[in-house]
């Protein structure tokens, strides 16, 4: 029976893996196909790969520009959210002040609202202050989404840091800022890394606000990718190649940062 159980376990894993990985596989493999191979029915599994789709993508100023735009928006919104969110998390984790739980709830409640509800009001505001179609408006809007994530995850992370460390540091003459900067930030790296990944992925993939708030100048990658999906004949190869190119930076970023997500960084502090 345990043998059979193991088999079942393996089969289940395989199934889940196939279901999640297949669309990804299809996208990547399709990006190397010619239009003929792409539209073949039944689908061809063995084909001669071509880089023509990628040549087309990188020749398209719109795509390259969109990726640069996305990078700017994602990097800055994530960075700013971390810079603003970590001190907030430190305060929520370690200080008692009036309205603390309300503030905490407010951070959570931000995520209760469906994004579409706020799209129009934000559009009107952006229009009034002349920020439509700028990087800044997307960065600002994305921060409002990422900040709560950073605050949640980091508050939790900071709370898990033994109090003794802070007290030891205080006795040694460390200021509150020193304690935050030299103890909580370095020890909070796993939480900061996780929230940064979430934030980056969110900004990078966000479509709704990017569509609503931008026109020509600051189109992001998802916007451009979807813009191909109109007209008479869909350029499948190019769409797939664009998709692959879009996925790449997030994957690289996630791989880089995940090294820091290891648990147990606080090990050895106390025993």
């Amino acid at each position, binding site marked *: 029976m345990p043998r059979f159980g193991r088999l079942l376990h393996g089969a289940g894993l395989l199934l889940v893996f196939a279901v999640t990985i297949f669309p990804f596989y299809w996208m990547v493999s399709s990006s190397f196909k010619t239009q003929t191979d792409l539209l073949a029915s039944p689908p061809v599994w063995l084909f001669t790969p071509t880089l023509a789709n990628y040549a087309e993508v990188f020749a398209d100023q719109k795509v390259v520009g969109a990726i640069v735009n996305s990078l700017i928006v994602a990097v800055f919104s994530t960075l700013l959210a971390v810079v603003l969110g970590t001190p907030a998390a430190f305060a929520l984790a370690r200080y008692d002040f009036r309205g603390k739980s309300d503030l905490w709830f407010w951070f959570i409640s931000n995520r209760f609202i469906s994004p579409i509800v706020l799209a129009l009001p934000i559009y009107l505001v952006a229009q009034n202050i002349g920020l439509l179609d700028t990087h800044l408006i997307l960065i600002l809007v994305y921060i409002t989404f990422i900040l709560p994530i950073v605050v949640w995850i980091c508050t939790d992370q900071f709370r898990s840091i033994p109090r003794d460390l802070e007290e030891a540091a*205080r006795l040694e003459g460390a200021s509150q800022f020193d304690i935050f900067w030299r103890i909580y930030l370095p020890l909070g790296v796993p939480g900061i890394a996780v929230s940064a990944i979430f934030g980056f992925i969110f900004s990078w993939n966000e479509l709704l606000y990017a569509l609503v708030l931008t026109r020509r100048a600051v189109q992001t990658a998802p916007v451009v990718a979807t813009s191909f999906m109109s007209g008479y004949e869909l350029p499948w190869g190019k769409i797939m190649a664009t998709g692959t190119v879009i996925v790449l930076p997030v994957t690289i970023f996630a791989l880089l940062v995940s090294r820091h997500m290891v648990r147990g960084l606080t090990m050895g502090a106390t025993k």
Partner: protein
Amino acid sequence: MSFLRLEGIEKRYGAASVINGVSISAREGEFVVFVGPSGCGKSTLLRMIAGLEEVTAGEVFIDGARVTELEPAKRKVSMVFQSYALFPHMTVRDNIAFGLKMSKVPKAEIERQVAEAARILQMEPLLDRKPRQLSGGQRQRVAIGRAIVRHPKLFLFDEPLSNLDAELRAQMRVEIARLHRELGVTMVYVTHDQVEAMTLADRIVVLRGGRVEQVGSPDELYDAPGNTFVAGFIGSPKMNLITAAVAAREGAALTVTHPSLVAPLHVASRQGGGGQSGPGVGDTVLLGLRPEHLMLGEGPNQIELTADLSESLGGSTLIYAQTRAAEPMVLQAAGRRLLGKGETFTAGFDAARAYVFDKDGRAF
């Protein structure tokens, strides 16, 4: 002139009263140990000396200056935590140097000081390791190193050895004693291990329920415990307490009887006085006999007991027995003297080593 002085310290958390008026002082260079059962407020008191916890009432003086509201760093005290509280992301070197860096000591000076601390604690080869690469004993050393490097006026230790195994604990205990001798700094040490208290302390402060029960040198507390609580806390195994009756009283001396005592026992007051206070004829008292003062068979005074169980410790034997009034009694006899269950025997003791407490537990 006292170096550390606490005056009427109180601490309340909301309605819960944790420290109820503690006044004690320590001379410069003294090794003071706080002992008491779990939850009696030892750590709280220590943290109030450090400034990590505010006092609800009372005053704290260190080196002649009132520091009651002073922030921790300015009190010039160092503390070694039970958990060590090492910074896990820093090397041993950086851990030790942390306080010096915070007080903006020049780099060369920091290096010199760290090297000096590493030498004193014999941990030069460990300086570039992270805490997680160290054993418990080594972490403890680093925590002490971090404490000594700033040349504090006062060292505070909160059960620093309780996470170590028995052998290492004995070793570190000796090392802390050596450190105290070498540095000559005032130390306040919290423990609930009475062996640590007896061996390290110049003075022991026995706490119970946020109050000081008694203050004195280890020998004073052993020889003249002020009440049954202190008597039970100092000494191991615990002092035996049996209920006896007062047959006669002459000033500062009592004659007490007990069903197991072969003859009435004459005991003198340990508190000097006597006078009119204390137990009178007909009162019941508690007679205290330490296990190590009871000898099998011999002695000027004799008590008859029935054995329950014997445990050989190799060099000596613990005998668990009962009096005729079915009170438990422990003896620590030299050599191997295993007695079977139900065996009756007599034990002897010196009247000068018997303790008497009134029915409220106060020493006579």
